[in-house]
């Protein structure tokens, strides 16, 4: 509690006791602090108090009527009574009336244990509604069970409006409202539609809030054990509780963690039954002798029900591990270590990422280790390291509430970072102005002050034009530039070529729009920049980010809350996996592998000799399988843990052929993914809720998750598998302790992370669960804002670099006139291997769709649901059409989560020269209305 100053204190009398309290507190707060119980139903800590249920009424001396304690602030001199006869009698009648409204008869109250807040109070105060208050029963509305995850039973509703506040004020999804009035008032979804027909996004915040179980998840949390963990979907890192019964996750709810404060999205709340899916891998598998590796089966088979027993046979762990290790050793013996590579995962823990790269580097003897950061923020990290010396975010998402302006470019947070989006939406209500630039009119643009619907791939033209406006209109922060920026003079000269008038036609917006946006950003006292894959996934992704860094730099937007740069991280542990060294050019903590000192240090630390040569990146590894002419040795063996390049890499025909051509492919997985189908050895591993370990979110918060359930069958913990392989590759590791030595592994990682993790020992995480890094001392909170007075570069200053507009690598033309953008849907994560096996998520979004603009649909004579084929120079796929008003004419969107219409068959594997990231956000394609029906679908 903060110190109390005399000017904000109140001297009050509470039930006869004189108290001096903080005058910003409500009567309810003060009563609670004094140990006095007051029943509440419509109240939720931290939310706007509504005061409608009237259960919390108290008597305030001198007032005619009773007063709702949840919203009345204490004032000097007031006398409050919470337990008088008058209060008790009125409160009991209120609860009695609410019981009748909620259909709780004396029989129900007597016969069941209280399962919700209302029944709990009725039981506690021994209230049984009298028959005289029975509702004159008219026809009772049937429960709305249209949604796969939860039910709304209006007859149990007491109109407390918590669901409305959850939906409208917390999550700001704007779906739930109150209709009608008086006794006929009721909770509605959308235009009084069924939940499924309404614009409900299924976040379930309403279900979590409901005090009467009128809104109730299909699975209840009764009689369960609670395990604290972190959501594995996306980089926001929401804290959650797994409720476990009989070895199964029964339900999930939001926990008060720093990133979410109890909020979750549809994936985080209703997306965990994949863990207990019947299609989990439960036995180690090896490819049967002579069984062909045929990538074409990925094009033709229904993978949801494909019988792979023809291809693989079950073996013991010993045999599988031996086969896996021998395969790698044989390649090292006959060829060289650089013929091997490993793809780790940003979906696993820090400990797994650390062990995995340690195995590749010291066990394989190569730096050919990478993970999917290469496909998402590699260009961001490259530019950030180059310009400001660190790849992490400078400021945390929730600081947006301190920002006057936030510039969101190439990100779609309501879909990809839904809980982060709620904080962004909340901030707009308290005055933060948004500038949104995106080829799609995303939902977040509804909250924007300025929206620029730009042509795909024109980011650099837009940002440079904004920089031009800032420089030429002298909106720069001179002091900041003088003190903390290198390279401004050269930059100033360079930017003269990028006037809005020249750039606007490339961007598809007007020069005025660019000027307005630039001025809004530059004139803000505090401005933040958020970006996502729309910026990074281009062959000029690094340039895009360099330009954004320059924008923040010349306007001096570093060092305070509500300023800085925030690349929204896509996967739950992409920050941590990169920190832990799961990248081919860096050891853990971003220490270059080409620096001899670093090599010496790690050779000593790991007692192992290491390669001095930086390794290949994700897409380069695939290219090196089949390209004997390249500089590097041909890749012959690959160890993949929890990645699915046969869906996520670009140019899939090529990628899949490469995977099939490998001499030895070991895949450590929880499902028979598209990649696993091409493996020699498959090691059944564990899903996130089966793991204990740490993950680091987009905000640089290190968070601990505990195993809630055991892996099915013979499936094993990933860190056990990696250690077993290490042992068979001759490494002498010895980690001991609970969960396969996870805390010792973390401690080793912490040693490598130096100052950043110094203040975050495992024991602290056990207590606090979440700590922001950098954190130098165990007694300190981590730094939410970094680069406060210097940048982690040699000079301590940031660099700004000139960038050129080069346009897209492949340009739309007569044959391929449309620009294809790939991405995610709210319900499906990454390649869909988890979410498509989650009942609720897959029910909500069961099949692939090609999103096209109303105008293009009209031109092609296509209606919603018509089959459409989409072609690029590399291949074609078909799916049903979905007309999408958020798209501009000429732009097509395709999610990459569906094997039935794998988007990456179309995309190009040309790479950004620095970040080595492919151009997922622009592929020239052609569309045609198709007669054929999809030949396969579903899970």
């Amino acid at each position, binding site marked *: 509690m903060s110190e109390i100053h005399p000017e904000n204190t109140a001297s009050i009398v509470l039930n006869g006791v004189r108290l001096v309290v903080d005058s910003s507190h409500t009567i309810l707060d003060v009563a609670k602090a004094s140990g006095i119980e007051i029943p509440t139903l419509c109240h939720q800590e931290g939310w706007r108090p509504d*005061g*409608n*249920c*009237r259960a919390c*009424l108290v008597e305030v001396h001198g007032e005619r*009527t*009773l007063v*709702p304690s949840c*919203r009345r602030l204490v004032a000097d001199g007031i006398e409050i009574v919470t337990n008088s006869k*008058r209060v008790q*009698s*009125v409160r009991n*009648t*209120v609860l009695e*009336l*609410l019981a*009748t*409204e909620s259909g709780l008869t004396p029989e129900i109250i007597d016969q069941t244990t209280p399962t919700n807040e209302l029944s709990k109070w009725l039981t506690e105060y021994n209230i049984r509604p*009298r028959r*005289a*208050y029975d*509702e*004159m029963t008219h026809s009772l509305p049937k429960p709305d069970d249209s949604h796969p995850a939860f039910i709304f039973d209006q007859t149990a509703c*007491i*109109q407390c409006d918590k669901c409305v506040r959850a*939906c*409208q004020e917390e999550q700001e999804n*704007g*779906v*739930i*409202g*109150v*209709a*009608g*009035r*008086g*006794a*006929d*008032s009721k909770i*509605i*979804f*959308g*235009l*009084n539609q069924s939940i499924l027909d*309404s*614009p409900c996004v299924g976040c379930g915040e309403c279900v979590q809030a409901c005090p009467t179980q009128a809104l109730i998840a299909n699975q209840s949390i009764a009689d369960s054990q609670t395990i604290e963990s972190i959501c594995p979907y996306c980089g926001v890192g929401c804290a959650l509780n797994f409720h476990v019964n009989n070895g199964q996750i029964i339900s999930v709810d939001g926990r008060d963690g720093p990133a979410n404060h109890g909020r979750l999205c549809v994936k985080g709340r209703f997306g965990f039954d994949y863990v207990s899916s019947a299609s989990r891998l439960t036995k180690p598998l090896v490819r049967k002798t002579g069984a062909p590796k045929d990538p074409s089966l990925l094009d033709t088979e229904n993978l949801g029900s494909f019988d792979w027993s023809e291809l693989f046979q079950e073996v013991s762990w010993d045999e599988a591990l031996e086969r896996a290790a021998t395969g790698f050793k044989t390649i090292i013996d006959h060829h060289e270590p650089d013929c091997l590579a490993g793809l780790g995962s940003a979906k696993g823990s820090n400990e797994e990422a650390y062990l995995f790269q340690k195995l590749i580097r010291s066990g394989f003897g190569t730096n050919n280790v990478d993970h999917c950061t290469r496909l998402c923020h590699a260009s961001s990290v490259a530019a950030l390291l180059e310009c400001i010396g660190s790849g992490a975010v400078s400021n945390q998402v929730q600081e947006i509430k301190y920002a006057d302006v936030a510039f969101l470019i190439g990100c779609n947070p309501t879909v990809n970072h839904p809980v982060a989006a709620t904080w962004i939406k909340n901030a707009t209500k308290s005055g933060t102005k948004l500038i949104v630039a995106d080829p799609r009119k995303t939902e977040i643009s*509804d909250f924007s002050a300025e929206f620029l619907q730009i042509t795909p791939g024109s980011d650099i033209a837009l940002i440079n034009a904004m920089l031009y406006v800032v420089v030429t209109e002298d909106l720069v922060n001179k002091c900041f530039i003088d003190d903390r920026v290198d390279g401004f003079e050269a930059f100033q000269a360079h930017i003269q070529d990028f006037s809005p008038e020249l750039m606007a036609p490339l961007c598809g917006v007007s020069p005025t729009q660019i000027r307005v946006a630039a001025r809004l950003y530059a004139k803000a006292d505090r401005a933040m920049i958020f970006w996502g894959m729309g910026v990074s996934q281009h062959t000029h992704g690094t340039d895009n980010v360099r330009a954004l860094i320059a924008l923040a730099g010349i306007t001096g937007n570093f060092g305070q809350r509500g300023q800085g740069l925030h690349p929204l991280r896509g996967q739950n542990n992409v920050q941590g996996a990169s920190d832990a060294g799961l990248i081919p050019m860096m050891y853990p903590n971003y220490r270059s592998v080409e620096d001899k000192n670093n090599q010496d240090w790690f050779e000593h630390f790991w007692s192992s000799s290491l390669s001095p040569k930086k390794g290949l990146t994700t897409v380069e590894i695939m290219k090196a399988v089949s390209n004997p002419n390249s500089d590097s040795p041909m890749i012959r063996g690959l160890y993949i843990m929890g990645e699915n390049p046969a869906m996520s890499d670009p140019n899939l025909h090529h990628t899949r052929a490469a995977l099939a051509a490998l001499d030895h492919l070991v895949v450590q997985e929880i499902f028979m993914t598209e990649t696993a189908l091409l493996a020699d050895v498959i090691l059944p591993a564990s899903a996130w809720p089966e793991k204990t370990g740490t993950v680091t979110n987009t905000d640089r918060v290190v968070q601990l998750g505990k195993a809630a359930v055991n892996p099915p069958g013979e499936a094993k913990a990933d860190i056990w598998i990696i250690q077993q392989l290490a042992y068979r590759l001759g490494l002498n590791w010895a980690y001991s302790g609970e969960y396969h030595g996870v805390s010792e592994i973390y401690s080793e990682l912490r040693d490598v992370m130096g100052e950043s993790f110094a203040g975050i020992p495992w024991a602290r995480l056990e207590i606090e669960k979440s700590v922001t890094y950098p954190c130098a001392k165990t007694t300190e909170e981590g730094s939410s804002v970094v680069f406060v007075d210097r940048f982690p570069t040699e000079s301590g200053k940031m660099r700004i670099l000139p960038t050129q507009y080069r346009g897209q690598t492949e340009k739309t033309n007569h044959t391929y006139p449309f620009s294809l953008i790939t991405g995610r849907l709210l319900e499906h994560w990454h390649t869909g291997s988890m979410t498509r096996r989650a009942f609720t998520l897959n029910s909500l979004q069961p099949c692939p769709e090609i999103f096209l603009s109303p105008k293009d649909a009209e031109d092609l004579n296509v209606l919603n649901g018509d089959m459409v084929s989409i072609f690029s120079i590399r291949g074609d796929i078909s799916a049903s059409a979905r007309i999408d008003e958020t798209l501009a004419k000429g732009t097509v969107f395709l999610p990459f989560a569906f094997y039935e219409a794998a988007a990456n068959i179309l995309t190009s594997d040309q790479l950004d020269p620095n970040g080595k990231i492919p151009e997922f956000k622009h592929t020239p394609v052609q569309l045609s209305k198709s007669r054929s029906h999809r030949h396969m679908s579903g899970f």
Partner: protein
Amino acid sequence: MFEVNSKIETKTLINESQYFPDRLIEYLHRINDYFGCLPKPHLSQLSKLIGRNEADVFGVASFYHHFKIVDHTPLKKITTLRICNGFSCCMAGSRELAQSLSQEFSTDSHINIVDAPCVGRCEQAPVAVLHQYPIINATTQKVLSSIAENNISHPPASDKRHQFSLTEVVHQQNGQIKISETINPDWVGLKAYKRNGGFNLLESLRKGDISKSSIIDELIASKLRGLGGAGFSAGRKWDIVSKHTGPRYLVANLDEGEPGTFKDRTYLERDPHRFLEGLLIAAYIVGISRCFIYLRDEYHGCRQVLSDAIRQIEEAGIIDRGFIDLRRGAGAYICGEESALIESIEGKRGEPRHRPPYVAETGLFGHPSLVHNFETLFWIRDIIEHGSNWFTSHGRRDRSGLRSFSMSGRIKSPGVKLAPAGITLHELIEEYCGGMQAEHELYGYLPGGASGGILPARLNNIPLDFDTLSQYGCFIGSAAIVVMSHIDKARDAATNAMAFFADESCGQCSPCRIGTGRALNLMHAEKWDQESLGDLISVLRDASICGLGQAAPNVIESVNRFFPSEVINDE
């Protein structure tokens, strides 16, 4: 393709170059007036146009009685026929009328017959309203011919009346305002109003010939109190609001909805400029940046008069265009509650706000707001011109001032009676109303509409004014007096009132949302369950957020106290 139609239609009907989210209710009216209903596709389009989500738009539209939401665009306009079920109309036979009309139109889906709460024409009971056309002293035959002639709009009134003088009304001794036999009496246009000295006071105030403080002092001395029912000192209110930091708004409450009340309508349809001058004087003195007039939707004729009158003073340069914003209610009694009214002007569901904060400090759009009933502002000019002494010189039994009683029920001459404060019912009936109707004997009366309780015939000699009725569990409120005779029952009046409250409860707080309905159920019993009703009385009075719920049980207590034999079996 239907979507395209609804989009174009919505834009065409609203017909604005710029959309304001707070004007939602105005936009809903434009669609509803056209179709006789609100088709969902149009609500969806409207939600996009004004940038408010669909649940929000639906929630607002469904809150108000006058909007009817339908799934699909109707092929033919739906016409709603409202039959007043206020107690005065019921006494005049409106229930029988409703029954006979429902039978007539049981198969016609384009005539939508609904019971309406008091439409504010109790002196012309029974009343039916066909879309916007009031049928007074209605009979089945009159209604049928109106339908046949498609009389669905209120005929405009002429502004050719020469004069309307409150002092003259008072000096006529019997305080009668001549009741018009029509629904559109002539009104005093700007020329005539100015000819009789209108707007001179405002002008001298604006010129600085009269000081602001002298006017506030005069007003305080007149003891003019809020005439909407709450009775707060008008002068003090001005003082309080003017001390809060601007911008400040003035909100005129013309949502005259208390059953039995029709005084504001009676004055407004005759002399709108007297009200506007009062409003502008208040606005000038308090330093108001914009005025909002919230007029109940039932008063279609007044809306025309008022918008014409506002246009007249705009054209005459008395105010800038847009300084007064005339807003239209949509059928919700609760919007007569000042904070609910403010919510409604903001385009929301009319749910009362919690206090504190008070609207004088945090009102419309979060700014300090001066909220006045129509009649309070109507009196300003006369009180200043004639002096507070003139006003306070009236009164009987130590009460001072004049009150506009809306008299209806079993009396010979119903209507608005301007009478001295402190007058008794007996005096009102005998001096002002021509006595009881033939062969009717006084049985009891409602002194303050549905909220103010019920008094028995033997208490026809007590002074009627603010504060004088509290010892009887009653209050005068808006001075709407409904007179019952020996053929009526107090329990019927009470049940009628409770049904009204249950219907008009906004539903926000649980005691009122649930309690009014449960009380109504119990009141239907021949013998009342006093224990259960007693607990409901306490919970409504002590736990409701606003005055609606708090006053709702007054009628129960009145019946128990003054008419016990009606609800107890003589076993």
